[in-house]
């Protein structure tokens, strides 16, 4: 399980053996036809829309260019300097760090606890699993809008709770102190069910005889949990952490309906920062530089993570 998990999850399935079909007779022609017909569409699509744009981002990032005509105004590494000198960039980076911290400190333990509770069979367990998974399948945009209602200072649920205590309702999304906190809560609400499902899947494929053996040898329920079940879940925990970090680095849709990264850039993520500063103003060079930095972070992270934490899987 662990082996195969690692291969699909993250970085690559390369290096697996392809079973060799040994057939007598002139079949090479048939295979050549398949190679010529079946492979190019995928390679073309992928190269054109994924690989080339990343290469072009590196090229464009050397220009001061608004996207019209050809880029001519070469300014070297200045765009990178501008990005690194922008306070909002560091705020966005900090917010991505915050999202990862909250994912690890709150979301992951919550998901694991719920998975342990719901992996057993009892009446309602399946319904609860589906309910908890539901926020994950809702569009980020819809979720963001729902919570911008929840947080609304005049009509929202939070405002109503505040008023019932006789207090003046806060405008959580409009304050630099609370906007990011409000976004973080929505992130946990939306994504904990996904991680819970990962853990439930892992728990269900767990070899239960190991737990039984531990119990027969005199381990208590919690000892069996701590020393047998949790260690067996380490591969899934590492996977869950991986998804949390990758997800944080691409978070955008959820932020837009809630705060658009504001107020005063206090709730930007890397991608919303890229959108607000590069795309919406068509500053191609500057935006590309942000994209390249984000790309470098993603790739470095993926390789480092795979090397350090998923080495033997």
């Amino acid at each position: 399980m662990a082996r195969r998990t690692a291969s699909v999850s993250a970085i690559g399935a390369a290096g697996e053996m392809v079973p060799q079909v040994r057939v007598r007779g002139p079949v090479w022609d048939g295979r050549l036809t398949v190679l010529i017909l079946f492979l190019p569409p995928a390679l073309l699509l992928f190269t054109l829309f994924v690989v080339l744009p990343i290469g072009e981002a590196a090229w464009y990032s050397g220009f001061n260019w608004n996207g019209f005509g050809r880029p001519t105004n070469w300014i070297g590494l200045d765009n990178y300097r501008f990005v690194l000198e922008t306070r909002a960039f560091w705020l966005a980076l900090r917010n991505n760090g915050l999202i990862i911290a909250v994912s690890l400190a709150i979301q992951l333990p919550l998901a694991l606890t719920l998975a342990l509770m719901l992996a057993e069979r009892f009446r309602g367990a399946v319904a609860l699993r589906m309910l908890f998974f539901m926020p994950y399948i809702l569009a980020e945009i819809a979720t963001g809008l729902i919570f911008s209602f929840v947080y609304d200072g005049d009509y929202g649920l939070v405002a109503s709770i505040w008023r019932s205590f006789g207090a003046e309702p806060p405008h959580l999304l409009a304050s630099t102190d609370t906007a990011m906190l409000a976004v973080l809560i929505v992130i946990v609400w939306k994504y904990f069910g996904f991680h819970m499902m990962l853990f439930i899947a892992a728990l269900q494929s767990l070899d239960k005889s190991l737990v039984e053996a531990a119990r027969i040898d005199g381990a208590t329920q919690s000892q069996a949990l701590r020393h047998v079940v949790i260690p067996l879940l380490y591969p899934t925990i590492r996977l869950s952490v991986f998804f949390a970090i990758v997800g944080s680095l691409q978070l955008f849709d959820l932020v837009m309906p809630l705060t658009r990264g504001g107020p005063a850039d206090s709730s930007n993520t890397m991608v919303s920062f890229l959108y607000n500063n590069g795309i919406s103003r068509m500053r191609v060079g500057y935006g590309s530089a942000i994209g390249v930095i984000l790309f470098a972070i993603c790739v470095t992270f993926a390789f480092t993570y795979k090397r350090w934490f998923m080495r033997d899987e």
Partner: protein
Amino acid sequence: MSNARIIRAPFDPAMLFKLVFLAVVAIIVLVPLLATLFGGFKSLGELRVNPFGLPRHWEWQNYADILFSARYWQLLRNSLIISTLTVALTLIVASMAAFTFAHIRFFGSSMLLSYLTLGLLFPAATAVLPLFIKVRDLGLLDTYFGVALPQAAFGLAMSVLLLRRFFKDIPYELLEAALVDGCSYIKFFRYVTLPLSRPILATVGTITFVNSWNAYLLPLVMLNTDALYPWPLGIMVYQGEYSSEWHLILAFITLTILPTIIIFLLAQKHIVAGLTAGAVKG
């Protein structure tokens, strides 16, 4: 043995804690969703004083106005077209590539597969500006294909990996026998591999569909005409127009997430399997 019975006893404190905990989480998940559903049935005035409860006076008009507006159906239609295009492109292109990688050994095959899996490393957002310029230069800006092609390209890596693993599990004695009997690779793909792979095709198709249905960034960058907007863009425009008429916005949200929820209830098996594919398929 008897442990199981003790755990299940009605007055066990651990059990009680578990039930309370589950109930609290369930309430936290449900309340915003139900408040959205019921909020759409309230008048703005009632929403202000009673955002939590059932509507005292059911305003069917909010929902009816949206359901009878051309705008709502146009948004759903656009989303459906874009998602269907993306799914069709992904399934055709990815299954062909996966078949090649699964059954044919050729020089550089593992290198090419690694090349495709590069796509798992970074989000579409990193290259979205050059992507915009590419799509513009291809003349696809403001077209359904301008959104569907990049979406399919970015979902390709995961789809190829999932399909290839499934294709490889098809016993190759079958392929061998078919080839000896004079069946070509392409016929084998069409008449054996694809029919046998319906479950994984359904899984990959569903996850691609959900991702495309919910996507916001790519359509936002690639489309300029309101008439082409998929629903995530349309609902943001709607919210901009009716900025604080929350009862209308809530009704609109409910009606736009309804298809997602119906599809989820119908295809939960495929959705859960597809979206947690990294681990479940292991």
